[in-house]
């Protein structure tokens, strides 16, 4: 009966996620104890500081070389603190930070009963249009819980790409998903859609994570351990050599393959790759736009991080097994997303499909199992997330009596009404389309080059054609905004508070800078290209 020794945990190395989770809990406490009036400010302050702090921590870690030379595995092998992890965590912190600004925006909605309100339901639990809701609105309640939820989600996302064993992978997945499910249901306008989105997202998400979990189980069954390193050893090496005792029960390739496939499927779902993409359009459309922006940007980053680690650390030995499959998924996503997007009529759905296509492009970088591949994906994710945030931020600004005017036909002639905003949005669209001098192009080039370098020229060609198709619908929106006469009853662009303006401005700047002078960030991503084992 030996006393169990306390696990030794590198608090510093884990500081980013710890800070965020701490702040999240603090946020919950605030909800519990502070009077309504002060919650908003308190929450905003806490989340901003937390995310900023987390970012600082990430930078600190990276500066102290954790990203490159002394990358390590922390928390008893549970979490990796290495280049990719830190890079993505940095991106995620920034995305979270920016999203906080979007969440906190309170000037878009017309003031209710003298109280300025945000784009989240006053009483999410209440029946839409019911007495309870009216009560809540009269009382000027607002759902400040969104901030802790956001923080929890970010926390989960910070863990996701760092997860170094299957347990943490699964936990992180759930921690990031559950808050998102809730956030989806909180729209102030069009609540039915919002709730529907939540239901769909939740059920399908749960379904997917069940698959992932079963995959975890099978892998565990295969390797007898849940740590990536352990599994990798078994995959690459001769099981008996590692643990003679378990030689009998280990190394059953069927388990490995099936388990691996299910695991990958769970991640592809989060990424939104064909054929696991179908939730994306509906959820993107139904969720409150700030949340959509956050999801679209952050979830992709986190999920791709996890996928990269899984494929590069655990399954490189199986490359020849999963590569063809991923090729299929990649092509399906690029082409499918682009083609279906052509006929979309709703901005948010359009962006959803475009995100599917982009998932495909990023996958093209993933399948190139090279260091270049990793860094190109990292860069792409960084670039893409900001363009996405910016785009959705713009969407929140174009409103008419019924709230956001997301139907494309209403965007006709926007370029005449407010050239500046339209130009910025056009910039984002061009970035999506991968026009040179925008971040989108740099990313696309990096990814495709990595793919070509690893001999996947075919993928590049398909990708190029797909982006040609994709270009078509981005252009369509631009045509609509600039070349068609503005409608008399068209939507108007509300002048937002500095919060949203900052977001849009920032996104635009990042888009340009990453397009014109990406070298610095490419270096960053380049240094961050190595996974710790």
């Amino acid at each position, binding site marked *: 009966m030996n006393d169990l020794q306390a696990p030794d945990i590198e608090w510093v190395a884990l500081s980013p996620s710890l800070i965020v989770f701490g702040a999240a809990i603090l946020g919950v406490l605030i909800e519990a104890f502070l009077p309504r009036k002060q919650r908003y400010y308190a929450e905003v302050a806490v989340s901003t500081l937390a995310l900023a702090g987390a970012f600082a921590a990430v930078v600190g870690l990276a500066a102290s070389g954790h990203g490159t030379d002394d990358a390590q595995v922390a928390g008893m092998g549970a979490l990796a603190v290495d280049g990719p992890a830190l890079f993505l965590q940095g991106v995620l912190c920034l995305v979270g930070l920016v999203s906080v600004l979007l969440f906190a925006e309170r000037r878009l909605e017309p003031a209710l009963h003298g109280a300025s309100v945000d784009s989240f339901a006053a009483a999410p639990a209440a029946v839409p249009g019911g007495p309870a809701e009216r009560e809540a609105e009269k009382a000027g309640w607002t759902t400040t819980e969104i901030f802790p939820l956001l923080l929890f989600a970010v926390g989960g996302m910070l863990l996701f790409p760092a997860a170094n064993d299957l347990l943490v992978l699964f936990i992180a997945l759930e921690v990031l998903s559950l808050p998102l499910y809730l956030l989806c249901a909180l729209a102030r306008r069009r609540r039915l859609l919002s709730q529907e989105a939540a239901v769909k997202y939740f059920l399908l998400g749960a379904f997917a994570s069940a698959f992932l979990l079963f995959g975890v189980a099978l892998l565990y069954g295969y390797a007898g351990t849940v740590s990536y390193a352990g599994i990798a050893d078994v995959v690459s090496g001769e099981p008996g050599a590692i643990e003679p005792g378990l030689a009998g029960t280990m190394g059953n390739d069927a388990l490995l393959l099936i388990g691996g496939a299910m695991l990958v499927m769970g991640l592809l779902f989060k990424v939104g790759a064909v054929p696991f993409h179908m939730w994306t359009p509906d959820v993107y459309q139904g969720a409150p736009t700030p949340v959509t922006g956050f999801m679209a940007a952050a979830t992709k980053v986190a999920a791709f991080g996890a996928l990269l680690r899984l494929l590069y650390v655990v399954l490189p030995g199986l490359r020849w097994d999963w590569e063809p499959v991923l090729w299929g998924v990649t092509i399906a996503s690029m082409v499918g997303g682009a083609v279906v997007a052509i006929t979309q009529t709703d901005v948010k759905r359009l962006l959803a499909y475009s995100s599917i296509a982009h998932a495909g492009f990023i996958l093209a970088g993933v399948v190139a199992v090279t260091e270049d591949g990793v860094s190109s994906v990292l860069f792409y994710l960084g670039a893409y997330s900001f363009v996405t945030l910016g785009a959705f931020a713009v969407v929140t600004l174009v409103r008419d009596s019924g709230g956001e005017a997301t139907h494309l036909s209403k965007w006709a002639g926007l*370029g*005449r*009404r*407010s*050239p*500046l905003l339209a130009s910025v949005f056009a910039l984002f669209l*061009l970035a999506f389309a991968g*026009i*040179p*001098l925008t971040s989108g*192009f*740099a990313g696309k*080039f*990096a990814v*495709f*080059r990595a793919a*070509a*370098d690893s001999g996947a*020229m075919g993928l*590049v*060609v398909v990708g*190029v*054609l797909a*982006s*040609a198709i994709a*270009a*078509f619908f981005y*252009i*369509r929106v631009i*045509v609509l905004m*600039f*070349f*068609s*006469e*503005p409608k008399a009853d068209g939507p108007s662009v509300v002048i937002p508070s500095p919060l949203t303006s900052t977001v849009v401005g920032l996104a635009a700047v990042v888009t340009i800078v990453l397009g014109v*002078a*990406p*070298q610095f960030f*490419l*270096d960053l991503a*380049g240094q961050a290209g190595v996974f710790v084992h």
Partner: protein
Amino acid sequence: MSFPLLTATALTPAVGAVVTAAVPAARRTAAKWLALLFSLATVVLAAAVLLRFDTGEGADRFQLTESRAWIADFGVRYELGVDGIGVAMIALTALLIPFLIGAGWNDADPPSSPANGQEGPKDDEAPATRRWRPTQGFFALILMVEAMVILSFAATDIFLFYIFFEAMLIPMYFLIGGFGDRAGEQDSEEGQARQRSYAAVKFLLYNLVGGLVMLAAVIGLYVATADQLPEGTFSLQAILDARAAGELDFGTGTERWLFLGFFVAFAIKAPLWPLHTWLPNAMGESTAPVAVLITAVVDKVGTFAMLRFCLGLFPEASDWATPVVITLALVSIIYGALLALGQRDMKRLIAYASISHFGFIVLGIFAMTSQGQGGATLYMINHGVATAALMLVAGFLIARRGSRLISDYGGVQKTAPVLAGTFLIGGLATLSLPGLGPFVSEFLVLVGTFSRYKAAGIVACAGIVLAALYVLILYQRTMTGPLKPGLEKLPDLKVRELTVVVPLIALLIFLGVYPKPLTDIVDPAVEHTLSDVQKTDPEPETPAVEAAP
């Protein structure tokens, strides 16, 4: 490092674009003058480039070179440099823009403004569109295009070239889609807007597809170089040297694929049959200056790039593709001319004529003789000026009558003799009459082609006759005969218009009578290109005894 002249030349219009765009809505005229000012400044700088360029024996191939690190990770450097061809093209670009600005002086005024009495959003509903500043936008975009075109002429780094080759589509696209000449066959504003945006989208998609195909090839090129050289590079000079040193050899298959990737992009831009259909729409729907910008400046990047990149990078593949390319070029020549004959719309007619002329240019390039390629280069210049003259005058005419249909005109020379005269000269230049610039280049192209491919040369000659036909028919139907109703009050050219057209005509005559300065600049570059593709001019059958003068 000396003063970065090329960068300055390209940057001036870019800055001009920003400044012009920033001018408040009310200050339309100020914006115009600013744009003109900047374009003139660019002309000065381009002239400086021309002067600084050394055509002497043993001068470097690429001069005024600049080289800065840019995106090391992609193996991309900010490398500029010009050979004779580049200099000539930059000069042409810089020179044309002020005329285009002058010609388009009022084209982009918002419909409500008195400049042109079209109906449109009135001032009472202005709040909705208060910040809409078409004029500023128009000139800013033109300058932006100029900047990018100049950069793509000066870029000696393939990736850098690609960037601007691709990026210039965007401002072009807005120019085409945003500003029509309000004279479409549809009488309704909406109908025209629809046609315009159709043309714009067509233009963009065509060129984007080409560009993306090229992107694949560019990536492929990088990979190929990365395989064989210490690290992958996009530097034209580096690749040329490497191949000269025998360190680099793509291998037949790869080289051909890469060549195709590049060539398709350029053939779409050029445009070469059967990838031409975007041009008539684009030129037909856009205002005359923009149409000129497309055909005289932007499209030249395509042919220029064939000359510099296709031949420079992939000599064997170029040689391999020559028969096909020449066939396509011939088809373009004849086909374009025949379709020009069949047009009812003035600007579309000129567009098809341009297609025919681009056929000549490509023909000259792939004839692989000094005359052919020198001629092709001259052709780019001359065609630029000639089309400018013809199209701009046509634009003035259209602006007066508000219709592009040839059938709406007739007997114009009675009311507007000067307009008719300039139009005729533009036309004669287009049919390359001796004494005007285009003749020199066209004949050189023909000789160059003929001396290697007799049959091709003879077929191309058919283009000469057809050119005479479509130009003269156009002139006869519009300018001569009894006066058509609605033209009685047609005013003759105004001073502004004259100041635009006359210098162009003077230039045409000068280029026709004394092209030597130009050929002196171009020749060395052509010789370099020929040595890239390891070709020499065919020897004459029986070299004549040089008779004493």
